[in-house]
């Protein structure tokens, strides 16, 4: 008596999957459902690790630890929204811990961590993004762990300030000031890279 199981390995976009029933099944011990949840969130968790730690192997290691923690704590997950928040919070805080524990071994190196950024731009638009990406990598490498996490959650995960503050357990004003300082520094780096001209600068600049 064999039952056909849905192929969770392909086309797992949240809008195509009943994520609530996936979560319920995973909570009930269904390994396939858990794998489905992993596939849904792996890019987000892995990218948090990648942009925080700056290395692909460290990011994969972190993502694996996050999902192993999730596997043990599945009972405490209340909804699919809670799952997303939980994964982002655990991934960001785990990355901060690792950066603080080994700040010198987890450093950024543009060529080694993002070799794709060293390629020449294919066209102008892509070139603009590529220069921005270079400036961003440089900036992320210079930011303190908490500020780095704020930028990743704000712009990669598109989270609002209040949620970032809750996830990282810091005051809302601290999150705002991290964002403001980081954007200012990023603008400086982009000016340095001659990406933007003086006319593009905001009028209220000093």
């Amino acid at each position, binding site marked *: 008596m064999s039952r056909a199981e849905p192929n969770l390995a392909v086309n797992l976009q949240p809008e195509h999957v009943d994520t609530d029933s996936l979560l319920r099944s995973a909570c*009930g011990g269904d390994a396939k459902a858990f794998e489905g949840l992993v596939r849904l969130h792996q890019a987000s968790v892995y990218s948090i690790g990648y942009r925080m730690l700056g290395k692909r192997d460290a990011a994969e290691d972190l993502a*694996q630890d996050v999902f192993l923690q999730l596997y043990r704590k599945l009972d405490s997950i209340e909804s699919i929204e809670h799952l997303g928040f939980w994964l982002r919070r655990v991934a960001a805080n785990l990355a901060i811990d690792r950066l603080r524990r080994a700040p010198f071994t987890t450093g950024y190196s543009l060529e080694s961590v993002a070799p794709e950024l060293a390629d020449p731009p294919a066209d102008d638009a892509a070139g603009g993004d590529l220069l921005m990406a270079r400036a961003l990598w440089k900036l992320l490498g210079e930011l303190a762990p908490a500020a780095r996490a704020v930028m990743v959650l704000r712009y*990669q995960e598109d989270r609002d300030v209040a949620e970032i503050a809750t996830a990282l357990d810091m005051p809302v004003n601290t999150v705002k000031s991290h964002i403001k300082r980081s954007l200012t520094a990023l603008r400086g780096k982009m000016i340095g890279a001659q990406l933007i001209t003086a006319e593009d600068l905001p009028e209220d600049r000093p």
Partner: protein
Amino acid sequence: MSEDIENQLRRVMRPVEPPAGFAERLMRALPERSPRATLASVAVLHPAPRASVWRRLVGPTALAASFVIAVVMGHYVADYQAEQERRAGLEASRELMDALRVTSKKLDQAYEAVNRPPQAPAAAEENRS
């Protein structure tokens, strides 16, 4: 301008997929997990949540019971010690009163001996013959 930079950042910071085979490697690394009832069946079978509630209450209940027992035992021990001290005090007081009584008696006898009038010489001679 700020919005441009922010939108550009969002575009540049799109999530990237982990290396191929990540999910498979992760699933192989998962520890064994005993299969449990699904949430749907749990909703049908009410005893399970009740057991869960009981299990959650056992710890706090035991803690509260230990606290109450500790308080009651503390009161009992304190009362017992106070009673023992009171009895010891009474006993000491009684012994002191006895000692004072004996001392007072002895002092009375000594006083009487000292103040007794001396006997007359004739009477003393008569007594000798």
